[in-house]
């Protein structure tokens, strides 16, 4: 009797229990993975309509002689726009550092040394399951405000500490993406490379990781979309990003009727930034037939 085919693609009978276990674990991981950012163009349209309607309503209610709603919003746009650039900067830096650290941590998770494997697994699970806001608070309030290197006092700005706070969960999630991609590859690739006398490092570098890139790209891009949408968390700890500045503008104007159009515009900015990323992710997924 031939063994039934499994997603892991092995036909060596003795490997079947392990293959079953791996396949189950992969399914479990998909279930537990980060939420998938699926943005629909209609939502963008809905946000836009909300902004326009609320702005029109605010205009209709405004007292004669008051500055028009449009002019008010226009006045504050450059400042809030600058804040949004900071959001982008925070996300890019956090993503870059988080990816570099996460790849190392992910590779440590598949190390042949049990202590390395256990340690990196613990770090990954810890930072992956901790609430992002808690990590952010830790980094803001536990890190020093300035460091002295060789007599030189260097201030660490708030936003940089917030970026570090966001780097940690990114690192942990990238670590899981790397581990998952490497382990989802058929065992035969390892066997073939090993039988050709490749060392473990060569196997990873020349055979395994190049094939994993395609699998890792969609979840990695999804992670970035989640990250950029999490950057307004930094406003809670006082970083002057778009959310903080929008609130400041509303406070300065003392007009409650601007609440919906201004926050709506901010929402629209995030949508416009994330939508192409979400679309590209879905397209790549469909093309590679790999789901997150």
């Amino acid at each position: 009797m031939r063994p039934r085919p499994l997603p892991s693609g092995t036909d060596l009978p003795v490997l079947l229990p392990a293959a079953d276990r791996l396949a189950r674990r992969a399914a479990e991981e998909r279930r537990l993975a980060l939420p998938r950012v699926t943005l629909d163009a209609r939502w963008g349209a809905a946000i836009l309509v909300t902004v326009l309607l609320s702005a029109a309503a605010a205009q209709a209610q405004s007292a004669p002689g008051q500055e028009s709603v449009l002019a008010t919003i226009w006045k504050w746009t450059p400042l809030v726009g600058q804040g949004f650039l900071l959001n982008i900067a925070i996300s890019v830096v956090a993503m870059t550092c988080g990816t570099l650290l996460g790849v190392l941590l992910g590779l440590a998770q598949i190390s042949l040394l049990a202590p390395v494997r256990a340690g990196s697994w613990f770090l990954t699970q810890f930072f992956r399951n901790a609430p992002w806001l808690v990590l952010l608070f830790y980094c803001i309030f536990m890190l020093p405000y300035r460091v002295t290197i060789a007599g030189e006092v260097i201030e660490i700005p708030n936003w940089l500490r917030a970026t570090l706070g966001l780097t940690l969960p990114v690192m942990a999630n990238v670590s899981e993406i790397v581990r998952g991609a490497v382990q989802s590859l058929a065992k035969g690739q390892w066997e073939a490379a090993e039988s050709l006398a490749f060392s473990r490092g060569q196997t990873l570098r020349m055979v395994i990781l190049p094939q994993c890139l395609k699998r890792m790209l969609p979840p990695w891009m999804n992670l970035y979309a989640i990250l950029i949408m999490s950057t307004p968390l930094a406003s809670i700890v006082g970083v002057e990003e778009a959310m903080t500045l929008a609130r400041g503008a509303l406070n300065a104007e003392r007009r409650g009727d601007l609440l919906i159009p201004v926050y709506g515009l901010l929402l629209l900015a995030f949508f416009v930034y994330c939508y192409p990323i979400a679309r590209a992710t879905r397209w790549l997924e469909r093309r590679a037939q790999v789901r997150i």
Partner: protein
Amino acid sequence: MRDPARGEAPLVSIRDAHKRFGDVEVLKGVSLEVAKGEAICIIGPSGSGKSTLLRCINALVPLDAGTITVSGIEVTDPKLDKIVLRRRVGMVFQQYNLFPHRTALQNVMMAPVHVLRQDRREVEQRARELLRKVRLEGKEGAYPGELSGGQQQRVAIARSLCMQPEVMLFDEVTAALDPETVKEVLVTIRELAEEGMTCLLVTHEMGFAREVADHVYFTDRGVIVEHAPPAELFSAPRDPRTREFLGRIL
């Protein structure tokens, strides 16, 4: 046909190999010897430990007890340098296991260039010759996904040969192929055996085993039940288990 008992030290020698996976004892004391230039076939029902035995020879799977020697290298030595061993032992798998992100030619060239650090041009020349030999001229630039199963398997054979091994292991290499492409792969292997390459084949192709092998081993439940030259084993099996297996399959 060569006589394995002519006194020369065997190229591959397995003595009393034991292996267990959890509760399952896959190898229960297997011994066999293969002389240089000999082709042997291992036949037997699924789960009788054939594939595991092959994987022990190039140390993909470690033995629990017993010894294996390949061309003077003690495979079971705890200080074994696996890289040195695997340079001498080529292996071809049931699922081909080509590297899908590399072309046929790159698949063949990768190991000699990066593992043996041989000159790239020299390797390329050898790789092209090998692809010609397995009748894949013109497919050098094709990716594995663009090739049929039989073509992929022949690339896999060329890939192993490009390392210039002393022994080739074939693990049910035709089991995943369409019936019409089985033949092209078997022709390649037969040529190889006729040229004097030492081959260990795990196979379900009885006709092929009969034709190519110098010696056939029948395994069942982790032991070698009997072994003999093919003419003898296929026409006059001694053990009832061999008889039953051959009766079912032939």
